[in-house]
């Protein structure tokens, strides 16, 4: 195996193992810790693909904000009770079977994929010369300005919704 393949193999194996650990841990806080490891590995994979901006954002947004909120909520729960509850429902063998069949299909299909060379103006060299942050910014605020603004409005609606729900009702 070449060095890039070795790197990728490490990340792929580690990410799969961490994902399995997340769903099998009894204690939700341990799951969150495994998830932190998973997010850091995803960021590492982004770095490996020359997407340093995406890697930094992955850590700041997912590990730094969303996962801390998860942890905040989980710590408020009564874990002693949670740990004794059965984790899986009765039909888990059926779900596992379907999952394995889908995975088998995926493996069969993977052999027929041909990787095309990079097309268009955003080749690896072009992004490297400008820096990935600059490239993402330019595309986001010119070509995809409307979808970007729509996404912002969707988020704004969610924030207002949360404020309305949390507000004290004065009769």
């Amino acid at each position, binding site marked *: 195996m070449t060095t890039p393949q070795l790197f990728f193999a490490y990340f792929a194996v580690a990410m799969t193992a961490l994902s399995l650990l997340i769903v099998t841990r009894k204690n939700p*806080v341990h799951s969150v*810790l495994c998830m932190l490891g998973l997010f850091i590995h995803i960021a590492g994979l982004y770095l490996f693909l020359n997407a*340093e901006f995406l890697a930094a954002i992955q850590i700041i947004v997912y590990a*730094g904000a969303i996962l801390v909120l998860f942890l905040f909520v989980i*710590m408020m729960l009564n874990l002693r009770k949670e740990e004794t509850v059965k984790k899986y429902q009765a039909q888990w063998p059926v779900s596992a079977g379907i999952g394995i069949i889908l995975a088998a299909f995926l493996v069969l299909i993977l052999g027929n994929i041909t990787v095309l060379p990079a097309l268009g103006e955003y080749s690896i060299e072009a992004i490297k010369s400008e820096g990935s942050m600059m490239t993402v910014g330019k595309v986001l605020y010119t070509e995809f300005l409307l979808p970007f603004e729509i996404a912002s409005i969707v988020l704004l609606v969610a924030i207002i919704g949360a404020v309305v729900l949390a507000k004290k009702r004065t009769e």
Partner: protein
Amino acid sequence: MNANDIVWILIKTIGVVAVFLIHVMFVQLFERKAIAHMQSRMGPMRVGWHGVLQPIADSIKLFFKEDIIPTNSDKPIFFIAPIIGVIAAVSSLAVIPLWEGFSIANLNVGILYILALSSVGAYAVILGGWASNSKYSFLGGLRSSAQVISYEIAMGLSLVGVMMMSGSTNLSDIVSAQAEGRWFVVPQIMGFAIFFIAALAETNRVPFDLPEAETELVSGFATEYSGMRWALFFMAEYAGMFVMSALAVVCFFGGWSGPGFLPPVIWFLMKVYAFIFLYFWIRATLPRYRYDQLMGLGWKIFIPVALANIVLTGLIKILLK
């Protein structure tokens, strides 16, 4: 990348980390001395001349202390929490440019890297507090998680002005953009004020030291920690203080630049230590904030002001074009 490069990077990393840890050890003595003199005391005097060897004595004592683990604690997390803290704080050093052309890694996303690691560092406090299985520790952990999420936003936004003025998130480029004394602290005074206060909150220093508030929570998240594990938390706090001071110097005070009669690295260290002295000065002067005031301050004042600063910087940049 060949073997020589890898060896050179390893030498740089080990050198910087070793020098840094010595600084972290002695800054603690500096703090005790500075605060003692502000309160008309002498501070440590017994070990060595005016107590200069006190940090070494303290380290030896902590190293040989019994490592107490609470009975019902969550052991793996209890063990791993202080290590996360130290790793996050020390690895932030990798992108700090100490003098022209010298940083372990010259990352294009330098600022974002430091912000990312400072948010990972918060896990140390939260998980340590939770795993100790003690009410004081738990409250400290909860406070810390809320505090860090709130102040991280203000801190990130306050640095956007700097990114806009220099057109880069690479820390070396930011220093180069401030050449010839055009320090960003002048045009970005609002950004700097928010950054500095948010940095106090991120590093859990007075007046925002609610996660470890001695007078109400014993020692907050670190109540159940002892010996070396506690020392790791302590190290993480001081290392975080260094990193935040270095970031302030790089982003607002021209980094290593200064008149030529002293080498750049001395200028850089002098500026960093001026900031660290400011931290101590604040600790000796101000009382602690109340928790709801802290959250109100973060969300209702700092974030709107930081956003206004971004808009203002953008407008001025367009007008001056």
